């Protein structure tokens, strides 16, 4: 503590500059995330859709998958719900950034932590951790429920190898897609815009590039972020032409890193 006497004779005590490090910013972002209801609704939706739809799809398709006319692998169904759960991960990624812009909260955030890169990093880290845990747990519950029905038809899968990888792979994919959306959110600063752009890129454009002819089209399809990143979240991909799990995830990671870097540059320059 430092004390200064002013001309008027009043004593002013100003706390000695205590450095608030990155840990403090992390704690603040964690508090922010868990103190709004939208977070819990989105997490609940991720779980219900992700695990529920997997169980539902396995229940509905188990006898067909076990029959000789099946042309898909049960491995494509055991994390089926994650294809839909990725939408709620996008919503959560957008909300943690864009509601701050919509409400003006971002000014409080940057006044409290002027090093904007730290805010970006802390927000990202907190969200990635939450989505990884939620994604992995969701996939595991979906597996337990879905595999029960597959087992009854004699096509159950053990929790090992690619199946095990698809469990934490689901966590990784949701975390990645959340991070991707955070970057887009900082670039666009608008909730509806961010969600639309990311979902269009992942779900619509990702399928439409199939129509581009030739090798160019094939590669474009492989490299689209949703296509490259999602393979890690399933033991057997519905689309056999995509990159393999870890190569795809590395491509997706690189794309996310580029967007985050762009967001960081813009964030530093732009007035809040």
């Amino acid at each position, binding site marked *: 503590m430092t004390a*200064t006497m*002013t*001309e*008027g004779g*009043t*004593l*002013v*005590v*100003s*706390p000695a*500059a*205590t*450095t*608030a*490090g990155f840990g*403090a*910013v992390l*704690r*603040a*972002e964690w*508090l*922010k995330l868990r*103190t*709004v*209801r*939208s977070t819990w609704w989105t997490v609940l939706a991720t779980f219900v859709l992700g695990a529920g739809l997997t169980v539902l799809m396995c229940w509905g398709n188990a006898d067909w998958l076990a029959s000789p006319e099946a042309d898909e692998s049960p491995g494509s169904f055991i994390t089926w719900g994650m294809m839909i759960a990725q939408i709620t991960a996008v919503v959560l990624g957008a909300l943690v950034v864009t*509601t*701050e812009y919509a*409400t*003006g*909260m*971002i*000014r*409080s955030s*940057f*006044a*409290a*932590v*002027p*090093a904007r890169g730290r805010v970006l990093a802390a927000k990202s880290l907190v969200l990635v951790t939450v989505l990884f845990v939620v994604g992995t747990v969701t996939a595991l519950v979906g597996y337990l429920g879905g595999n029960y029905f597959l087992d009854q038809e004699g096509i159950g899968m053990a929790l090992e190898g690619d199946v095990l990888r698809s469990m934490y792979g689901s966590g990784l994919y949701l975390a990645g897609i959340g991070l991707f959306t955070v970057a887009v959110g900082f670039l666009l600063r608008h909730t509806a815009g961010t969600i639309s752009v990311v979902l269009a890129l992942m779900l619509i454009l990702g399928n439409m590039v199939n129509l581009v002819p030739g090798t160019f089209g094939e590669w474009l399809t492989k490299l689209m972020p949703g296509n490259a990143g999602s393979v890690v979240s399933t033991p057997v991909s519905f689309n056999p032409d995509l990159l393999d799990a870890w190569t795809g995830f590395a491509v997706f990671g690189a794309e996310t890193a580029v967007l985050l870097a762009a967001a960081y540059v813009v964030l530093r*320059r732009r*007035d*809040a």
Partner: protein
Amino acid sequence: MIRAHALTKRFATEKGQSRVAVDGVDFVVEPGRVTGFLGPNGAGKSTTMRMILGLDAPTSGTVSVNGHRYAAAPAPLREIGALLDAHAIHPGRSARDHLRWMAASNGIPTTRVGEVLELVGLESVAGQRAGRYSLGMGQRLGIAAAMLGDPPVVVLDEPVNGLDPEGIRWVRTFARQLADEGRTVFISSHLMSEMALMADHLLVIGRGSILADCSMSDFMADHAASYVRVKAPALVDVAHLLSGRGLDVTRVDDELRVSGLDAPAVGELAFRHGLMLHELTLVRSSLEDAFMALTADSVEYHAATEGALR
């Protein structure tokens, strides 16, 4: 202490040109007094305050808080507390949670949250979602957030907006108390009457330039025009007499407005020439009038009727 040097902010306009919001201003906001930051809407008050807090980057020039750039502070909330916008709060988060994350971000103990809630009188509603707050409660929460780090410098942008008379009075007393404790208090407002009651020192800004930087009393003496109102049965004779002495006399309806001489002198003069007076009053314009006169040229948006009357 806040120190601005040649502080300038230009914004790009839609037509590809640039508009100067703050034009090379120099000022120092001293501790131990309430400094009022006065200017019409659009004069550059909020932009200046945002630059102080590092939210907007100056186009050129510098501004420092306690001798260094705001962004260089390791725990900025302990150096400067700001109420920039009562809406800079997530409507779905409770007041207590809002203050908790802010405290956490700057390593301020959580016990301080309860203290500032009590300070602004929001303890009983601290668990409610901030979106349900009235404008006045939002302002109080903003002030609580500003005081969280017990900062030596407090910046309040339009703190009395939306407050009821009791709240306005509370802010006034609170600002005074902070200044008496030796803190630097910088308050913006476009309400002149409020400033007259609150500020010791005035910084007047118009169209991005500092128009006045002086004590409240100096400002009144320099800019609040005064004249002597004279009413008399023989108004023309009195007017003749006074203007013959080189005084500035204007007739408005049934009265004369005389400047350049004080009321007793005008009365004596009339008496010596045998002229009877019915009224002799010193009229001093309010801070509001003084402000209007000073910023008349720099008001961004005139009402249409006002323009038509000119």
